[in-house]
């Protein structure tokens, strides 16, 4: 077992395709992963805004479980695909390492469940793993039909690179673009790579959420790409599922596939649609006949 895998709540429901595609891609590249047993919520944003301490405790329990689950290893490599979880866990780890008092407090609490945390956990994002633990050739070789001619907009979203990630340039990340290139696809350069999609606002303050997401899709379309690829279940959800709503609201049809980068990789690796959960997406990326997406419609300012 090389990696422990922390799905997080989203990858079990709206983001199932992400889980499915990631696991099958990892299998293809023979990276062994095992799901973290009895994992709990990471203590996400919403939680953090009620009790920081408890949020950290939730993360800490996951770490403790991870460390227990791989005693034999010096560090537990915890792969976290969900951007929000990735950030929360990372943040918790930072704070636990920086603030001894906090660590002791939380450890005392963990004792009640005979758990404890020795900062032996390393939080890894799949992008990080694929970019840094593998030789690029390895991925190149796995490609069976190259995606040449496909223009993709790599959309990192906020929470992967900011503010704690150290595997990529926080201000101008490129790891996903590099991957896309390895698959033969052509990543466009655009300034909105890491601009927020609205996140949970889509559910709570929808008019804001819709616009934020629309801005991103709009720009991707304008720059003439065939698909947006993401590494975050919430981004994928916001950008894909609300396209009809946006189309009505802004009188301009947006209809562009939004895939997980793992799905794109899977397609290049020739993995079956079902294994990649492609059937769960609302609109497919048909690599055979690429419809040039028009940049029509008028501008919408926020």
């Amino acid at each position, binding site marked *: 077992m090389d990696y422990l895998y922390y799905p997080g709540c989203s990858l079990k429901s709206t983001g199932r395709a992400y889980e499915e595609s990631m696991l099958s891609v990892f299998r293809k590249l023979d990276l062994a992963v095992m799901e973290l047993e009895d994992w709990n919520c990471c203590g996400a944003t919403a939680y953090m805004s009620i009790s920081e301490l408890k949020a950290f405790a939730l993360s800490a329990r996951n770490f403790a479980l991870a460390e227990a689950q791989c005693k034999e290893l010096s560090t537990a490599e915890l792969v976290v695909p969900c951007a929000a979880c990735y950030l929360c866990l990372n943040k918790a780890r930072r704070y636990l390492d920086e603030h001894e008092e906090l660590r002791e407090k939380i450890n005392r609490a963990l004792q009640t469940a005979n758990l404890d945390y020795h900062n032996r956990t390393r939080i890894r994002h799949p992008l990080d793993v694929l970019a840094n633990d593998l030789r690029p050739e390895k991925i190149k070789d796995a490609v069976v039909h190259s995606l040449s001619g496909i223009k993709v907009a790599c959309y990192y979203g906020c929470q992967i690179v900011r503010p704690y990630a150290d595997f990529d340039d926080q201000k101008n990340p490129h790891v996903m673009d590099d991957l896309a290139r390895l698959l033969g696809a052509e990543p466009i350069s655009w*300034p909105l790579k890491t601009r927020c999609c609205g996140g949970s606002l889509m559910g709570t303050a929808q008019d804001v959420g819709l616009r934020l997401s629309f801005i991103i899709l709009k720009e991707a379309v304008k720059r003439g790409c065939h698909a947006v690829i993401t590494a975050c279940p919430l981004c994928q959800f916001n950008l894909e599922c609300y396209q009809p709503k946006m189309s009505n609201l802004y009188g301009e049809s947006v209809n562009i596939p939004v895939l997980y980068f793992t799905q794109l990789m899977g397609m290049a690796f020739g993995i079956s649609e079902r294994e990649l959960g492609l059937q769960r997406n609302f609109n497919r990326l048909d690599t055979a006949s690429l419809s040039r997406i028009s940049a029509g419609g008028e501008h919408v*300012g926020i």
Partner: protein
Amino acid sequence: MSAFENKGNGTPKIGVYVCHCGINISGKVDVSEAVAFAGRLPYVTIAREYKFMCSDPGQELIAADVRSGLIDRAVVASCSPLMHELTFRRAVTTGGGNPFMFQMANIREHVSWVTLDRVAGTEKAKALIAAAVSRVARHEPLEPTRVPVNPDVLVVGGGIAGIHASLTLANAGKKVYLVEREPTIGGHMAQFDKTFPTLDCSACILTPKMSAVRAHPNITLWTYSEVDAVDGYVGNFKVRVRRKPRYVNEDLCVGCSDCIEACIFKKGKISDEFNVGLSKRKPIYIPFPQATPLVAVIDAESCAHFKTGKCKKPCADACQPNAINLEQTEEIKEIEVGAIILATGFKTFEASRISRYGYGKYENIYTSLEVERLVNAAGPTSGEIVLKNGEKPEAVGIVHCVGSRDNNTNVYCSRVCCMYSLKLAHLVKERTGAEIYNFYIDMRTPGKGYEEFYERLLREGVHFIRGRVAEISDWAMKPEEEGRIIIRAEDTLIGAVRRIPVDMVILSVGLEPQSDAEEVRRRFNISCSREGWFLERHPKLAPVSTFTDGVFLAGACQGPKDIPDSVAQAGAAAAEALALVDRGFVELEPNTAYVQEEICSGCRTCTNLCPYNAITIKKDKNVAEVNGAICKGCGTCVAACPSGALQQNLFTDEQIYSEIRGVLSHV
């Protein structure tokens, strides 16, 4: 006979003077308690306190006590010896005593200013006083060593500061060596178009001074040269200057540029340093028309002759005076000077370090220095401000504080950006009639006529938006934004975020220390501030001196400065240097090492330890001997001497032991 008894003039009579320094000291130290304590210490004949010991009446206290024979040595407990040791030594001398029968206890910088608790402060002060007392009891009269001073001065750096300093000294009749790394003097000022706030043409006011340097009989100008090594000490520096080969004989070249015409490169291929890469030059070139000296230079990096050896050397044939000499080699000059002035200047911030400002990513984003060249009539576009597509800009954004006031780059304010941004705003508006948007955090216009200039700009209808620019991108959200550069920032005075489409962006880059400042400061044995600026001896009272006597600072190498300040400081540095070399001699601390021959075993441990080879062995007696003229008083040999035969004046083992005992005396 006790080792603690003072040799020479009988039992010591010590006077202790504790300074209140207003409340600077008395705030954290119970002065009267300290004085009472001092009074009880051995050999102390009088202990006094006074509000300001450094004041005339304060000094007079000491002088009077010495005069009246009440004391023969003094301890002053006040500020740091680096501040006032000389003052009080002088006081002792005025009273007729020997200046070195004196010791200072630093109870301000090391006690009152760094201690919270008054009791602890008083205790610490008492300990330091006790130490000074038990030390001074072992002081002996000494004579300062006088050494002659070489009257010549070295000025490093040929920017406006270096030029001004050189001229001032030369006019005073001193011989000056001006060493400049580039092929010409002039520095950054030569690149500027106009100067704020008066808007007079930079070249017009600079070039006369440049030619004055060239013409001055007292100035030896070495361009395309660098200082390799510095040796010696105040008054007697030995400097090695390396003159890089320019492959053109300076004395013969008349600057006609026939060679440049003739070069096999039909047109320029190498990015032009003077135009900050906005134009191309040939391998053989003259940096700019008013270059001083007006002598061509060949850069061997790119010259076909040096790269391939296959060039027919048309330049050499074209040159009537036969100035071209491709066999020229590097030349080493050894000079001796009494004082050194460093005026090595600054470098501008590398704008691409802030990725979200898109420098190097989008077209028509320039640094302020580039724009100085653009607006300059002699510049690459001969003064035309045009976009890459040849059109005139309709809107221009000026971004302040690029690489300043930012923990991610430089924390300090670069001091000149606000003003030069205003200047550029004026020039660009004047030439193009474009709408100008200034994005600033705080407008900083302290200086004669500066605020008035700001008002003028306001009246000229330049837009000022208080807010640090967040993002510069080509991401359009409105039709009018298409194909333009969009600047996104909060207008903090309104509290709204604004997107402003422009055609051209000027990044007002901050000032940074030269990239090799670190090596330079080591070469000249001076210190640097945190940011890497050369450190002055005292921020207020010795702004152009350094901790190395005889080395002075001028211009922006000491910190961001505009032209008026650089020139003023250059004048000050020149005056300081003049005061030093004109006197003809310097008095050195007599803290040199000496040998007690009767103890010395001639083991030669010391001889190879001395960094200055000041120690030799007397053949006849087989004992070590210190050359006082060469010894600089570091005391390394003393510490190493196994027999204790070597001692250091003002720092004898005995003195230091008793100081140690003193600080611990009332443990």
